[in-house]
């Protein structure tokens, strides 16, 4: 079953604007991760936030995590055309033994010059 679900499915903004993407999930997690995928390429890891963290920054990226609502958001500030990509959240469910990341279906971001 799908653990992480991104919202919106697609987002179109102008350069310089901020972009916000949301992720909701269903079970307890160890961590939540955000990835970017440029068209026709593999995914690139952006940021990992642990379940005991509420906010994390990396350059123009800001990630928040609300474990009570089982949701996370990714904010890209002052977006650029080069930020055009699909963005995925992935959850690391809290299980005993081995488990794997569960990826959402992604938000497609288009940043126009």
């Amino acid at each position, binding site marked *: 079953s*799908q653990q992480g679900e991104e919202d919106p499915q697609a987002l179109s903004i102008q350069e310089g604007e901020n972009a916000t993407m949301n992720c909701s999930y269903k079970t307890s997690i*160890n*961590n939540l*991760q955000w*990835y970017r995928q440029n068209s*026709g*390429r*593999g*995914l*690139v*890891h952006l940021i*990992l936030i642990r379940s005991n963290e509420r906010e994390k920054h990396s350059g123009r990226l800001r990630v928040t995590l609300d474990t009570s609502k089982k949701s996370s958001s990714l904010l890209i500030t002052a977006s650029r055309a080069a930020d055009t990509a699909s963005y*995925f959240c*992935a959850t*690391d469910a*809290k*299980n*005993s*033994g*081995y*488990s*794997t*990341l569960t*990826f*959402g*279906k*992604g938000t497609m971001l288009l940043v126009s010059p």
Partner: protein
Amino acid sequence: DVKVTQSSRYLVKRTGEKVFLECVQDMDHENMFWYRQDPGLGLRLIYFSYDVKMKEKGDIPEGYSVSREKKERFSLILESASTNQTSMYLCASSFLAIVNSRGGADTYSNQPQHFGDGTRLSIL
């Protein structure tokens, strides 16, 4: 920098053929993964491996098998290719972190995955 290399960017095969997709990583990662990505369906896990000669089924293992004879190499095999296996295939690797170890039972945390550039496979 971690490098995950997939043997082909584009591949065209015929139905019924046995197809091998190869993936090599250079960071001594314990975990390796094979996903397929289809429009509207996102990433779906086919198989993963947490150690040499170990393999675990993912969400959609039917029609596929894997091989991990060496730590750095993880191969995906389509035993008899069919048109519904036309897709983008992504390989990834990661470290395995133990977050809790009590009474002989370990709990693991998934660390960031590093992806290859993908193989776009067409089955005709």
